[in-house]
């Protein structure tokens, strides 16, 4: 079990990073990574919603949709649950936890259509975590690892972009092209983590 958890964590953080190797959540990765504080805010908000979404969608799928043979409704149910959940969280935070709302509130409405959130809830089942006895725990660990991996990629990339501002970039590459090419280089550095979990456990 510990081995499984560590493997999931390492995969989410390094080898199968959501942004840099699965291409989930590229929009916020490119759009909100200009400054470190906004990158951190977005990353924390995404992690928070991802864990929450997994907490809610996992039981819905295993206890409700699968026994009723409605698993083909996965996509439509998950996106509606996520949309409703994000609204609910926003209202609750606004009413009861003011400081947290001020920190994360502005990012919450943007997260509904973030493919990383819907992606992780679906990935929990394509990874077959529901076949394990501790499946719920694994799914939550997976969304935690995915979210923190997203946060980490955002922070690293915010640093890279900070340096880009002062660089003399050829005219044709200014703006989006050079941002994407730097993302390619950051992503390439993450390839170096390949086989990390296998190496640790000698599998």
């Amino acid at each position, binding site marked *: 079990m510990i081995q499984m958890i560590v493997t999931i964590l390492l995969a989410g953080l390094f080898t199968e990073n959501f942004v*840099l*190797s*699965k*291409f*989930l*959540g*590229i*929009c*916020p990765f*490119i*759009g*909100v990574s*200009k*400054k470190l504080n*906004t990158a951190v*805010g977005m990353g924390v908000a995404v992690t928070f919603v991802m864990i929450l979404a997994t907490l809610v969608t996992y039981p819905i799928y295993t206890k409700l949709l699968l026994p009723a043979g409605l698993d*083909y*409704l*996965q*996509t*439509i149910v998950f*996106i*509606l649950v996520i*949309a409703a959940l994000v609204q609910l969280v926003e209202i609750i935070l606004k009413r009861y936890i003011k400081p947290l709302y001020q920190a994360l509130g*502005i*990012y919450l*409405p*943007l997260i*509904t*259509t*973030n*493919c990383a959130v*819907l*992606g992780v809830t*679906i*990935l929990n089942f*394509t990874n077959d975590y529901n076949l394990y006895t501790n499946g719920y725990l694994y799914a939550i660990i997976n969304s935690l690892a995915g979210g923190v991996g997203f946060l980490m990629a955002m922070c690293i990339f915010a640093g890279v972009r900070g340096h880009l501002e002062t660089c003399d970039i050829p005219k*044709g*590459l200014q*703006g*989006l*092209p*050079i*941002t*994407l*090419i730097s*993302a*390619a*280089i950051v*992503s*390439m550095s*993450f*390839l170096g983590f390949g086989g990390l979990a296998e190496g640790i456990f000698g599998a």
Partner: protein
Amino acid sequence: MNKLQTFTKGIIRENPVLRLVLGTCPALAVSTEAVNGIGMGIAATVVLVLSNTIISLLRNVIPDKVRIPAYITIIAGLVTVVQIVIKAMAPSIDTALGIYLPLIVVNCIILGRAEAYAAKNPVVYSILDGLGMGIGFTLALLCMGIIRELLGAGTLFGITITANVIAPMTIMVMAPGGFFVFGILIALINKLEKKLGPVDRSSGSACAGCPSADMCGANEQAPEKEVEA
């Protein structure tokens, strides 16, 4: 704008991927092979045309306040149908596209066109707009797929082209290659900006309806509201 222009604008002049910079996630993820690009493109086009049709028909019925959830529900329903059809007809495409197939739901091209076009225009125009945008999306994916497959695997549509002559650069079919090819393509398109005429990414032509419109990469010039907030 006449019908022909409505149809053709999405193909090159307002290409959703390369000019409006929408739907980048699937564009990067599935363009490892040209065939996957076409599969994804066709799936998204079908959803886009149908969602534009339905939303345009219902544009006077859906209350303004709940329009985004209504659109998402319609789109999610259509995606589910397409998913089931692909699973039955082309299981290999289904495996290749993996989770990116259900993720068409959150593809901002579809929600963006619903909000920016179908909600305001008659059915025929909305269908043509969806078809044009869908073909533009497919062509962009195909273009990226061809480049990445040829450089990264030395094949095209699975047929060996250069793999025997030059050792393929495997990195092009991996994640970094996706970012790199996309960056270079955008740079090329920017170079052609003068010929194609400028495109206003922040206006209704882009994904103004998408909740992340203000922050997403589509609006590079948009003021950073989040800083003051």
